């Protein structure tokens, strides 16, 4: 299971991939920032197309583990998150630190590019907005032209 509604447990992810043969462990944590596009963020809510998240994350992890000699752990949290909460954690363990670094980077970049997860940011001025990455369609960088919630 790559999705969870519970706080991410980095220690458990580390335990799941560390072994006496793998001396190099690279990790990445993505945490909720308090600002976005110049506006103050109070909290946010992640939602997902859960079955595809599971399928796509499994593909990404399999790609990394076949390209490099690594064991990869990956978890993304959904639901309501507060500032500073970890939304995503990637761990890659390898006998070679170069492979651990490269694989962890690959996994987070591919996750951002391919895994169907969305977030709604709640701003200090009371507005709420869907946030999206550029280049995924004409709706563009921000969902504000599509949705104006309150």
């Amino acid at each position, binding site marked *: 299971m790559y999705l969870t509604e519970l706080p991410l447990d980095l220690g458990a992810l580390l335990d799941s991939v560390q072994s006496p043969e793998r001396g190099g462990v690279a990790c990445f944590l993505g945490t909720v920032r308090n600002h976005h596009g110049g506006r103050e963020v109070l909290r946010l809510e992640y939602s997902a197309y859960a079955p595809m998240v599971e399928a796509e994350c499994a593909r990404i992890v399999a790609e990394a583990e076949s390209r490099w000699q690594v064991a990869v752990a990956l978890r993304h949290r959904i639901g309501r998150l507060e500032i500073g909460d970890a939304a995503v954690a990637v761990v890659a363990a390898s006998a070679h630190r170069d492979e651990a670094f490269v694989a962890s980077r690959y996994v987070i970049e591919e*996750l951002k590019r391919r*895994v169907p997860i*969305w977030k709604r940011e709640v701003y200090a001025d009371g507005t709420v907005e*869907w946030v*999206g990455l550029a280049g995924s*369609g004409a709706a563009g960088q921000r969902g504000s032209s599509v*949705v104006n919630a309150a």
Partner: protein
Amino acid sequence: MPTTAAPTLTVRVLLFASYADTLGFDAVDLSFEAPATVGDVLARLRALPGGERLPPRPLCALNLTHVRSDAPLSGGDELAILPPLAGG
């Protein structure tokens, strides 16, 4: 609502996040004369209220895998129209 005797196929269409808000629903079954593609679903969605706000080439996933809009459909497929991704 096929109007001919041509064989039809029905697909489950899922909308998420801002697209679900825009069109006002998050799932619908749509039927098409075979053969049909992802692009045919998008054209149908664009004709619905709010559908004109879909981007020209939204991300689409067919049975949990990313596809282009020329991907062919089969009966029973699950087609998801994905707003810009924001995971991580």
